[in-house]
């Protein structure tokens, strides 16, 4: 068995990054290192938006996006489920109705489990109803039509959209704005971020959605991994500078090493 030609650098980078993440997590758990996350306004605003929904007696809408739990967009859905667990806890705390809409069938049982467990952990199992987590359609625009229908009929006061979003992002965000909801959105899909920035009150940009679980739970495993991400980013920035300097001076060494 061998490494496919062209993937050697990627393979070793994968191992080094994985070891670094594990090492920083262990250091964090052992108390040798205490990462501090900067304030993320969008995550702070979630409690405010749920409090507002409670005062108004209107429901909260949560969408984990339309990405599946397989493929390169899967981490966005898992990050969304982390936030969903937090939103469920707040919904239980404030006795606010929660509506979770789902497009991908594979995500449905996971979201149901997260919400059900969240209510049970808060001692309010009876808050989980049959229609709390709703599958609408696995067709992208049928799904968004369903969401807009819910906005129009139930006048949600808070709309939280975290996960992988595509063309439906602006439809959902504008629908929420027209319903008068406080909106917190986040995605790692580059081309949808501007739509969320334009239409929502708070936007989590790119990697912020992956930091959400750590930020909200302050779990040491997750905090350590977020700190390790920053070290990897620093290394990448250094590589960008070195690569630019070498390319400017006519050296192709780094390009050759990375192509191996």
């Amino acid at each position, binding site marked *: *068995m*061998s*490494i*496919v030609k062209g*993937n050697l650098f990627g*393979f070793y980078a*994968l191992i080094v*990054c994985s070891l670094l*993440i*594990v090492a920083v*997590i262990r250091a964090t758990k052992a108390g040798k290192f205490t990462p501090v996350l900067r304030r993320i306004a969008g995550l702070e605003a979630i409690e405010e938006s749920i409090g507002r929904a409670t005062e108004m007696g209107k429901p909260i809408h949560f969408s984990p996006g339309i990405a599946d739990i*397989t493929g390169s967009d899967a*981490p*966005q859905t*898992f990050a969304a*489920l*982390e936030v969903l*667990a937090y939103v469920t806890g707040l919904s239980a705390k404030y006795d606010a109705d929660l509506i979770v809409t*789902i497009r991908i*069938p*594979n995500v*449905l049982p996971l979201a149901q*489990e997260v919400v059900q467990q*969240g209510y049970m*952990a808060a001692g309010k199992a009876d808050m989980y109803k*049959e229609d709390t987590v*709703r*599958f*609408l359609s*696995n*067709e992208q*625009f*049928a799904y*968004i*039509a369903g969401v807009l*229908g819910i906005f129009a009929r139930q006048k949600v006061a808070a709309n939280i959209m975290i996960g992988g979003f595509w063309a439906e992002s602006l*439809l959902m*965000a*504008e629908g929420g704005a027209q319903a008068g909801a406080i909106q917190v959105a986040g995605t*790692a899909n*580059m081309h949808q*971020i501007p739509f969320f920035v*334009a*239409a929502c009150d708070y936007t989590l940009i*790119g*990697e912020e*959605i*992956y*930091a959400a*679980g750590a930020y909200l*739970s302050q*779990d040491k*495993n*997750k905090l350590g*991994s*977020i700190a*390790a*991400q920053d070290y*990897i980013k620093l290394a*990448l920035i250094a590589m960008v500078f070195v690569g630019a300097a070498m390319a400017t001076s006519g050296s192709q060494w780094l390009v050759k090493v990375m192509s191996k």
Partner: protein
Amino acid sequence: MRREIPFIITLVVGLVFLLAPLTAGNIPLVGQPFSFITATYFSPWTTIVAAFATGLASVNLLRIHANSISRKRAGWYNSVALVFALAFFFVYRTAVELLPANKALAAGYANYFNNILSPLSAAMFAVLAFYIASASYRAFRARSLEATVLLVAAVLVMIGAAPIGAEIWDQFPVIQRWLLAVPNMVGQRSIIIGAAIGGFATSLRILLGLERGHLGGE
């Protein structure tokens, strides 16, 4: 065991899928490459799981709307339309699968599907144009320094991209290209790199069982 079994399955399957595109040749003692294992043993399982999930989702949909009809909730007639459509397409598709020789039946199914769903989807997509206008109006109000910078950049890009821009001043397209190629590209790439590393770290946490939010607990 409720937590351990999903963790073990995630770890094993995740590692195999991770190594499949990176490695070539047979795995020692197993005698088959990772790519063969994913294609032969794991991929059918993803299809089976997805099929079960779709079944569960359909039941969820049906129960919610059956309740809506039986309790005559506001807009219950929409639920009737949904249940009817669900039943109609289920029966029709089953008939198409059971009678593969009947080409007219298959063509009829495609006709119903394409002539109802496609126009409806296109209509929803078209609404986006109006929403872009209303969202832009709100975003481009110069309420703060950032919003003002956004407004100025947007106006320059729009004028530079429109044919009239070059007629007014030949430097508008140059400014537009610079805005897209330099500040915009720098921002995009930094977000993409950050998101990619974030996605990788999240995946690793899931593989190692450090992230269990999706299993209903910390």
